[in-house]
């Protein structure tokens, strides 16, 4: 599974699966924290819809960590103050870069959690859709 989809699942899951997968790596492999989880900023670039130009919306606080596993460096970045999750994401990223055999087995788990997240969003959206309004104009 590619990084974009993987990180989306691991972050939107709230870190439960990330913890489970990172602990497998930590148990079976040596790992080295290159950069402990630390705070930094990411500037958000956005395309406005009036003239389709780009501008900077503002910054968002992120937590970032870098970890080496099996001679591969992994990076974990997540919005907010999330030291543990950033470290777990970095370990998982390193595991994929190192092509550890465990990552093949993770595919199914990730897909299962992705399905749960998606279904939860569908339900949330259905609840929001209850506020869909149909105004009727009155005769004057």
């Amino acid at each position: 599974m590619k990084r974009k989809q993987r990180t989306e699942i691991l972050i939107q899951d709230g870190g439960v699966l990330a913890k489970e997968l990172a602990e497998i790596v930590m148990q079976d492999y040596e790992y080295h924290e290159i950069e402990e989880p630390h705070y930094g900023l990411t500037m958000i670039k956005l395309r406005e819809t009036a003239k389709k130009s780009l501008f900077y919306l503002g910054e968002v606080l992120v937590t970032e960590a870098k970890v080496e596993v099996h001679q591969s460096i992994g990076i974990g970045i997540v919005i907010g103050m999330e030291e543990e999750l950033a470290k777990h994401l970095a370990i998982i990223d390193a595991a994929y870069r190192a092509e550890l055999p465990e990552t093949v087995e993770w595919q199914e788990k990730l897909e299962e959690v992705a399905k749960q997240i998606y279904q939860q969003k569908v339900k949330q959206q259905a609840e929001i859709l209850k506020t869909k309004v149909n105004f009727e104009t009155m005769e004057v």
Partner: protein
Amino acid sequence: MGYVAVKGGTEAIEASLARLKYDRIKGEEIVEIKTVLATMRPLVDQVMSEASLYAPFLAALAIKQAGGSMEEAVFLLRAHRSTLPRHYYSETVDTEDMFVERRISASFKDIPGGQLLGSTNDYTHRLLDFNLVTEKKEDHQAWLRQFQEQMNEHDADKELQFFPKVVDYLREEGLFETYDLDDTPPKDITKESIQFPTGRSERLQALTRGQTGAVTSLGYASLRGYGQVHPTIGEVRMGDVPIHVKHPYEEESDPDDLFYIGDVKITEVESLVPVNVKKQNQKEELEFEIGYGISFGQNETKAIAMSILDQCLENSHGEFPTHDEEFVLLHIDSVESTGFISHLKLPHYVTFQSKLDSVRQVKKGGTTNDD
């Protein structure tokens, strides 16, 4: 004006700080950060928007430390932001990817995808609810359980909906000018001071981090005749947009290898503004232009006012201050305006004494250095 430093007063300042602490804690109540986050989200959103830093926990901490003072909380968060390194720039955010929680139009009753009221105060009675004086957590839990149960009853096998922009439909009808994607790298006013005349990216960045009250007041002034923009709202949408960043060292740019780092909540507005355009035959025709507004969090009034000011500043007009970019952009920043006004109460003894001396000279019938 020249400035002269003052010294001394250490003991008085320390005693003053002790009184500040006393005032914050003398009621012997503690507001937990999680309480601010859970119950005062619009306040948190406003502080983040004006500080130009999306960090809900830090904004709530700033609100607690400031005792609820907006200007102080924004100042604290801006100051903290300046201590943090910026490691990344996001990939371009497209607001059509938003998980929409609210989406309304004042221009069209029927918009593709429908209008979603979401969570809003718009249709409340604005009567004080005295039940809140005695509300209990147990009551909330029962209500929340029921709400959750209702949500779980929905069919989970449907497709997730993403909503098209109302203005895109109008563009397809040829009612609005279409623009190609403009990938000109934006300027960053936090790295380089605003220079006049400004570019569009500078204006939008300055407006979106403007003080809510100031942006709203100037937008309102334009509506009342101190400007030439009176829009109808094409679309207000609020929800979460995903943020992605590139790997800092990998050279390949496969979009599937980006890092998703989380979502931020935003409010976005497109205002439809009628303008008279002179055509080749010298006849004036009515056309529409779009004013753009956006804000961190849910802050619709500010985003709407920003869309008015965006349109004002796109069309300079010497007669009206709201069309003057220097007037608007240099006076809406919370830290700059409250900082400057507030500094007036700090010691100005030397400069004021010199002015007093001048007045005394004049009263005595003498002349001043200015003569």
